[in-house]
């Protein structure tokens, strides 16, 4: 029992010391309730992981919508994705520049797991009547980290 406790104390001391020595220590209490994934779940939105997105992109099984500004989209986006910045999404839909069937599976994303545009776009589409919407919360950063290729338009 003493040794079990000693391992715990040693691990606690090591983790506290190493975290304290880091240039940007991880705060002991994170703001996870405000995290985009938590907000998406609270809004009743379904999340998809990188594996599901990779399969959907490979099989063209869903419309992937990039909610970032157009310049960011042109610089690099998930292959096959369409640009739909969330702040002009209504305009794009009403002007028929982007046609979406109501039931088609749609996956939205933005830059990273701390950006809001993908969530905002997904919520907007759901309010507009689209029924099969999911959010890839990891964004382009997670796509790249998983070794995914990126298309650019330059």
């Amino acid at each position, binding site marked *: 029992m003493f040794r079990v406790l000693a391992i715990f104390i040693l*691990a606690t001391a090591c983790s506290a010391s*190493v975290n304290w020595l880091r240039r940007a220590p991880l705060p002991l*209490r*994170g703001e996870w309730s405000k995290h985009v994934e938590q907000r998406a779940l609270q809004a009743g939105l379904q999340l998809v*992981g990188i594996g599901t997105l990779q399969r959907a992109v490979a099989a063209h099984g869903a419309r992937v919508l990039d909610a970032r500004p157009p310049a960011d989209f042109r610089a690099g986006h998930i292959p096959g994705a369409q640009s739909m910045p969330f702040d002009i999404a209504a305009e794009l839909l009403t002007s028929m520049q982007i046609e979406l069937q109501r039931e088609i599976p749609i996956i939205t994303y933005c830059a990273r797991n701390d950006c809001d545009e993908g969530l905002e776009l997904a919520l907007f589409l759901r309010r507009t009547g689209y029924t099969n919407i999911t959010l890839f919360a990891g964004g382009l950063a997670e796509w790249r980290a998983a070794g995914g290729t990126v298309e650019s338009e330059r």
Partner: protein
Amino acid sequence: MKARLQFAARIFLAGLFIYAGLPKILAPEAFALVVFRFHLLPDVLINVVALLLPWLEICAGLALLLPAWRRAGAAWLAGLLGAATAALALGLARGLDIDCGCFTLQPGRSHIGLWSLLRNALLITLTLWAGWGKPAHAP
């Protein structure tokens, strides 16, 4: 022969848990996100667990190599594996589409599935056999 096999298994397990712990220590934010995505812990515990757990893996793994400490190390590793297995099972039951983050933090490399449960069950068995069983002298 059994003592040699137990000794080899302890070296394997120590190496495995050091290998598992290091990336989590190097990228605590990424590991905290992995912990968060299981949606099992309250906010206040997520970062604490993300900071502490990899050091527990490493310290307990190293303890397996010290004869006087191997049972304590095995107890921790079996406990950690048991907790991880329960989290994975709950994640699977709830249909979570997430990475395990058990041995790598690279996205898409460790999606949770039945394989992760089977692997953890085998590791628990190996840990208890090699670390908790009747003391056997190392070769």
